[in-house]
């Protein structure tokens, strides 16, 4: 505990994909508050990413905004390398980037299927694979995959999204078992309806079905991600932590 603000000095950094908005931005703030230098990987919103970096730095943290489409393998790898070069080895990876292309199954074209799987599942695997090698050598790592309750239970209109998120949960369990003996944990969170750009306009229709009678906030999901990335969560691995106000209970 060497820093003036009482947070521990970290030997590496955290990398958050989809980090400029919503759950990703809240996670970046939370991890920065825990002392992690944070690489914020984002696809489109320069203004929000730069504002978040400024906010974290104003609070005494370190952050770096890296623009990349994680579904592009070369761009994702370059973003990862840039984070390592600037902030040190990536010891916490939050695979949060996600897109939705909703429709009933008969109307989901190949392009919409492939795009959702590429960003929500394949990109997460590639980044996890990339992160694990240095984590193995460091004998420490935390991977947190942002899945969804939609990966655990039905949600008509989201067959592609549900398949990708269910895939994330399966990947989480198996990779967790592979690397657990190296002090690397791999977990998932499964948010329900959270107030973000992605759910804008949808919440009024579903709130009455949520036992908590309200949508969640990005900060409430980020708190769980922060815990799973913490030293205190060292014996939690392969788990999926549902954060849904009781929706799937």
């Amino acid at each position: 505990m060497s820093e003036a603000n009482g947070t521990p000095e970290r030997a590496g950094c955290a990398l958050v994909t989809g980090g400029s908005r919503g759950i990703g931005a809240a996670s970046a703030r939370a991890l920065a508050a825990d002392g992690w230098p944070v690489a914020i990987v984002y696809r489109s919103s320069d203004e929000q990413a730069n504002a978040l970096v400024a906010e974290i730095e104003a609070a005494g943290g370190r952050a770096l905004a890296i623009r990349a489409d994680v579904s592009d393998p070369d761009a994702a790898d370059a973003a990862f390398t840039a984070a390592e070069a600037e902030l040190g080895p990536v010891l916490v990876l939050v695979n949060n980037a996600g897109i939705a292309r909703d429709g009933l199954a008969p109307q989901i074209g190949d392009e919409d299927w492939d795009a959702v799987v590429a960003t929500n599942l394949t990109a997460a695997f590639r980044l996890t694979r990339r992160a694990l090698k240095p984590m193995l050598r460091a004998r420490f790592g935390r991977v947190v995959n942002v899945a969804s309750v939609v990966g655990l239970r039905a949600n008509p209109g989201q067959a592609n999204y549900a398949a990708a998120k269910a895939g994330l949960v399966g990947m989480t369990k198996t990779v967790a078992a592979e690397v657990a003996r190296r002090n690397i944990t791999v977990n998932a969170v499964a948010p329900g309806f959270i107030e973000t750009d992605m759910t804008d306009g949808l919440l009024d229709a579903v709130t009455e079905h949520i036992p908590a009678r309200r949508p969640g906030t990005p900060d409430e999901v980020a708190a769980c991600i922060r815990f799973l990335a913490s030293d205190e969560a060292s014996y939690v691995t392969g788990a999926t932590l549902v954060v849904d106000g009781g929706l799937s209970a």
Partner: protein
Amino acid sequence: MSTTVTPEQVESRVLDALVTFGADASVVSRDATWEQLEVDSLDLVELAQVVEDEYGVEITSQDMQSLPTVGSVIDLVVERAA
């Protein structure tokens, strides 16, 4: 990088890595098998990573399946780094 790699350097680095993974230093040798060293599949992944980082030599999981001893890995690294 590859022009400076000697068999002795590779052997020394590989043996050191195996001890770091928890293998008994008194048993680690060129002739030792992974079973004798109680080296598991994740250790071999990590050994491949060490070799790739330090000598630029890629060893796949398929390669590892046909490399039963410490010496066979060392020889492959030296060959590919040449």
